[in-house]
């Protein structure tokens, strides 16, 4: 194994699976956690566990500093004015649907989605459409795995909201977001970016980017599960109405009614995910030591090598791996079923994902029901990819 120092930060990479060294290639589903994240969460529970905000005791102060420290880090990392902490990308998108959508969308308004969306950026809008009679328009995916931008432009007439995935979790394709945001705004529509796959790979300047909402999860960027964020532009923030009611989001409560906080707490009712926020902040601290651009290029090279080798083995590869794309390689063998392949790979320590990847409309468009997906992250090496290809050749010889 070629030595990659940062691998030492991830204790899980030392384990074996079925007697073989773990080769973890399921990073688009979730990433592994560096020791600093595990330690930060353990330290919080060992020393500072308390509920946040109102209590005056020392532990509550430490917990509050830890929790709010994550929000401060998010605002700095993404250059955003408002950062609402959620349980993840899914809750963040649902929050937009409930807090902004219900307050601002009425019958005959239109929402523009794409065929490339994850279910979490489709289902909340279908539910809202059923409730409010809102029209949903889908932008098709072309044969080169990109969005049909002509249809997109035409779909904007009368649209109030455009929801688009930053980078496809199946194809790894990064969408032309700058053009999408500019056109949508010109047409008077707000823009929600599902950055679950984008935020972990590149630094995004939310303010310069210009989107109105951006949703993403901690666990896909070395942070804990159970926490994510919704970044919101100030004008869109003002248009959001409280969704969940309860403690922490109020200013005053009387038997006659309640008034609400003016800041992000308005959308964070109840005890928040304190340990997770502290862990996520530690993950940002760890990622800060990396040259993300350089690491992204390295991962993309590994993905390109993998895709080329797979095509050479007769596999169909779904994706293009252009410069801005992520290091996701979805593929299918003409004979060996995707699930069979994933189980056989697991038998020798390779963790890949199989199935519809929560993107059934996209797979339907591609005329398939599942793919095998290998997705790379900072701790993966070219040597792992070479071994992966070699192992696949062995499997095909034996089982296909």
């Amino acid at each position, binding site marked *: 194994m070629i030595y990659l120092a940062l691998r030492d930060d991830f204790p899980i990479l030392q384990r074996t699976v*079925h*007697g073989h060294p773990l080769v973890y290639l399921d990073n688009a589903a979730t990433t592994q956690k560096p020791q600093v994240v595990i330690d930060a969460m353990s330290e919080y529970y060992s020393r500072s566990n308390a509920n946040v905000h109102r209590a005056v005791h020392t532990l509550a102060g430490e917990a509050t500093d830890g929790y709010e420290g994550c929000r401060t880090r998010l605002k700095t990392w993404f250059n955003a004015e408002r950062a609402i902490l959620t349980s993840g990308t899914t809750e963040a998108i649902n929050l937009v649907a409930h807090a902004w959508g219900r307050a601002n969308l009425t019958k005959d308004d239109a929402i523009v989605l794409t065929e490339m969306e994850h279910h979490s950026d489709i289902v909340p809008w279908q539910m809202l459409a059923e409730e409010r009679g809102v029209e949903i328009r889908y932008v098709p995916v072309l044969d080169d795995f990109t969005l049909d931008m002509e249809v997109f432009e035409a779909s904007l007439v009368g649209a109030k909201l455009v929801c688009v995935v930053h980078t496809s979790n199946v194809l790894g394709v990064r969408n032309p977001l700058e053009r999408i945001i500019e056109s949508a705004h010109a047409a008077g529509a707000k823009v929600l970016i599902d950055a679950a796959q984008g935020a972990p790979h590149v630094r995004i300047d939310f303010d310069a980017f210009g989107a109105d909402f951006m949703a993403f999860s901690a666990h896909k960027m070395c942070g804990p599960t159970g926490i994510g964020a919704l970044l919101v532009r100030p004008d869109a923030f003002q248009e959001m109405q409280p969704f969940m009611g309860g403690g922490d989001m109020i200013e005053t409560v009387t038997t006659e009614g309640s008034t609400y906080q003016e800041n992000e707490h308005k959308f964070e009712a109840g005890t928040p995910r304190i340990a997770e926020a502290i862990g996520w902040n530690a993950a940002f601290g760890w990622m800060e030591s990396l040259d993300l651009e350089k690491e992204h290029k390295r991962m993309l090279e590994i993905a390109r090598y993998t895709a080329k080798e797979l095509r050479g083995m007769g596999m169909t590869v779904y994706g293009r791996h252009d410069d801005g794309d992520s290091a996701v390689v979805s593929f299918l063998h003409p004979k*060996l*079923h995707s*699930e*069979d392949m994933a*189980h*056989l790979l*697991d*038998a*020798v320590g390779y963790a890949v994902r*199989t*199935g519809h990847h929560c993107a059934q409309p996209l797979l339907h468009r591609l005329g398939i*029901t*599942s793919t095998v997906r290998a997705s790379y992250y900072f701790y993966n090496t070219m040597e792992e990819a070479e071994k992966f290809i070699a192992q696949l050749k062995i499997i095909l010889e*034996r*089982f296909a």
Partner: protein
Amino acid sequence: MTYPVHLVELIEEFQEVEDQMERLEMVFEMADEVLVLAVDVWSDETRILGCQSEAHVLVTLDDGKVLMSGGADAQLVQGLMGILSIAINGAAPAQALLLSPDFATEMGILNSLSPGRSNGFRNMFDKVMLEIRRLEA
């Protein structure tokens, strides 16, 4: 639980295997054991819900004995069907209904396959048992 002799032999055969790939290869080979249910008769009635792959089973009585046929687009799923048909085909319905899915755990199959796949096995097992109960009624 006591199992039919041919199933006990199969359990022992699987238990002797330590290499995971080899065990999966054995499940693959069991795909040939299932009486094939032709794709053109696959329907919503024969579909096994909860499997990630497309999987179908049909249970009938042949001279009063259970006869299961099936098919799947994934070889491992069809292999699991093969194992189940070895366990129940030729048995009287009342006898087949005594079978517990635990035999798959004893063979190491539930440990060797993912929770999704294991649930698929359980769903397949439950569907087959339901069909047998219907035939018995």
